[in-house]
C-alpha cells in the first residue's frame, strides 16, 4: 500500500514536471537551425554524399559513430562471453 502511494506521488510529480516542460518548450516545427543549415548546404560539396544523415554519421560526427561501434562490439562480446562461460561449466 505504501509502495503504491509512493509510486503514485512520484508519477504525479514527474508527470506535472514533464507536461509543464512539454507545453512551455519552444513551438513544434520551428527549430533553431544554423548548424543544420550549414550541413544541408555544404554536405554535398564537402563529403560528396547525397544522404545528409550519412554525411553527419560518418563524417561530421565520426567520433559518435566510433563510440557507438565500440558499444556494439562490447555488448556483442559480452553476450557471447556470458553464454560461453556457462557452456564450459556444463561440460566439466
Amino acid at each position, binding site marked *: 500500500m505504501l509502495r503504491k502511494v509512493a*509510486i503514485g506521488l512520484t508519477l504525479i510529480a514527474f508527470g506535472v514536471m514533464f507536461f509543464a*516542460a512539454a507545453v512551455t518548450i519552444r513551438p513544434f516545427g*520551428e*527549430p533553431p537551425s544554423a548548424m*543544420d543549415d550549414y550541413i544541408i548546404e555544404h554536405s554535398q560539396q564537402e563529403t560528396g554524399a*547525397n544522404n545528409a544523415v550519412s554525411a553527419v554519421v560518418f563524417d561530421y560526427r565520426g567520433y559518435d559513430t566510433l563510440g*557507438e561501434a565500440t*558499444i556494439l562490439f562490447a555488448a556483442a562480446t559480452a553476450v557471447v562471453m556470458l553464454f560461453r562461460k556457462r557452456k564450459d561449466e556444463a561440460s566439466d
Partner: protein
Amino acid sequence: MSEFLANIPFLAVAALICVALYIMMSQRNLIKVVMGVVILESAVNLFLVTLGYREGGVAPIFTNAPGTLMVLPVPQALTLTSIVIGVATTALMLSMIMLIYRHTGETDAEKSRKVKG
C-alpha cells in the same frame, strides 16, 4: 489552447516517459522492467526526432528530393546512434536475465534477490 495543441508531439513524449516510469517502478518481473526501459528509449528517440522536425521539411536526402527545405539531419543521426546503442544494451540486459533465471529459477526481482549464488 492552440499552443497546447501544437505541442502534441512533446506531450506524447511526456506521456511515454510517464508510462515507462510507471512500468519500471511498479513491475517486479525483470523482463517487464526491461520493457519499461525500452519504452523509455523510444520516448527519448521520439523526443530527438521531434526536436529536429521543421514545418514542411522533407527527409535530408538529396536523391530525387522534391525541394531543399529539409528537416534537421543532426538529430536524426543522433537518433540512429541511440537506436543502435539501445539494441545492444537491451540484448545485454536480456542475456543477464536469462542467466539469472538459470541460476535462481526466477525472473522476479524480489525473489531472486534473496537467492544467493
